[in-house]
């Protein structure tokens, strides 16, 4: 049963990855017994499943995802939120408060106005309607300080790392609070501007080199070096 690449090779759309008794995993598709890549990325052969880890992608909402969004519209029943996705998300007023609420437009914009940033969770999404958000859980809500970094959503898994290994190192070494939105937006809140700057640098480095190995060590080294410069 032939495979045509090695693990972690870079492949392009249309590349024939495998032929025979294989299963088409992420970012691949199947025609008869042939598995092809459908995105630019790193090919991964996991037993019989062939995946492609995309190098660049946009965010498609998934129920349960933590996302960071920006309010773009206030209306009678809630807000429309840009979550860096092809689909505009909706945050209903009922999902912003724990008590029953009677909508009045003026009041809503006092709570969240156009331009405000929020940490939210996706509670519903399917092919027939736009994603619905909630900010009712602890830790969610308006973002009042810190910085936002935007990366390609494809890099989020690498920034989090296996079992959160990369993100814990980042938090520890930069002394920052870092919340990673699945939609590619990351919120950094540190003791001071310098700590936040180093965190941003580290995240950008991971985004650029996500497809290489030995990254964790290099990022740690970089952070230590940046600190030493001061």
């Amino acid at each position, binding site marked *: 049963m032939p495979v045509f690449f090695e693990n972690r090779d*870079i492949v*392009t*759309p*249309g*590349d*024939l990855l495998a032929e025979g008794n294989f299963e088409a995993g992420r*970012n691949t*598709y199947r*025609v008869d017994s042939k598995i*092809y890549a*459908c*995105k*630019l990325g790193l090919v991964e052969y996991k037993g019989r499943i062939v995946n492609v880890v*995309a*190098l*660049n*992608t*946009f965010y498609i909402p998934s129920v349960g995802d933590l996302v960071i969004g920006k309010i773009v519209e206030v209306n009678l029943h809630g807000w429309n939120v840009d979550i860096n996705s*092809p*689909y*505009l998300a909706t945050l209903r007023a009922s999902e912003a408060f724990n008590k029953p609420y009677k909508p009045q437009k003026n009041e809503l914009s006092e709570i969240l106005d156009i331009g405000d940033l929020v940490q939210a969770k996706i509670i519903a999404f399917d*092919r*027939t309607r736009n994603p619905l958000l909630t900010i009712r859980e602890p830790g969610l809500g308006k973002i009042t300080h810190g910085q936002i970094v935007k990366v*390609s959503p*494809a890099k989020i898994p690498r920034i989090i790392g296996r079992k959160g290994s990369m993100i814990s190192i980042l938090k520890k070494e930069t002394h920052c609070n870092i919340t990673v939105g699945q939609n590619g937006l990351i919120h950094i809140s540190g003791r001071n501007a310098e700590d936040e700057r180093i965190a941003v640098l580290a995240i950008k480095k991971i985004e*650029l*080199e996500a*497809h*290489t190995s*030995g990254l964790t060590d*290099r990022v740690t080294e970089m952070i230590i070096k940046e600190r030493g410069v001061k």
Partner: protein
Amino acid sequence: MAEKIKLIDENGIRTDGRKPDELRPIKLEVGVLSNADGSAYIEQGKNKILAAVYGPKEVHPRHLALPDRAILRCRYHMAPFSVQERKSPAPSRRETELSKVIREALEPAIFLERFPRTSIDLFIEVLQADGGTRAAGVTVASLALADAGLPMRDLVVACAAGKVDGYIVLDLNDIEDKEGMADVPVAYMPSIDAVGLLQMDGQLTPEEFEEAFNLALEGCRRIYELQKQSLKAKYLAIKESVEEAVEEK
């Protein structure tokens, strides 16, 4: 009667020094515009063409949205300074036709069903034109779509062949296109052996057409390899520099 220009000399060499089955020099670059979701740039001979993709995103106006898939909108446009005699910026009938055939070449490549109710907006701007701009436009647009992270069945590549002074030639330049006997642009997806764009103007016997068509497909396959390389280039360069740095330790 005006002197007829000789497009191919006795040795089979063309006006720009090429042999009949030779492509013009091609340069491809991916990810050249920071605002677009995906972008790419091509130079093919004197052609200079930029492509950018915005999307998938919400459709405006809303009534154009399709419930079960994304729509692909394509605008092929030539800059006023792209040709010898200034071209008016208003869309010409030729640009309208080319926007349509280019879109129909790229649509079958994208898994549009995965993004219902959205639109993918593709812009192809010809900054300098020297024959074969629709083929080069398809080639660069396909890279912009891949750069945007859209799921695709294959890259779409395009190339033209034709008949000039009795020879069947590959990749006609502007003067060969204008003064030659026939021009056959073809867009192709090599992995799945599918033709998405095919046009012809001029006069060819069915046998000559088959020869030109097959030559165009051959040109497509060669350009396809260049497309793949250019998509990977940025990432391979990073990988190399990282591995070098590690070795130096």
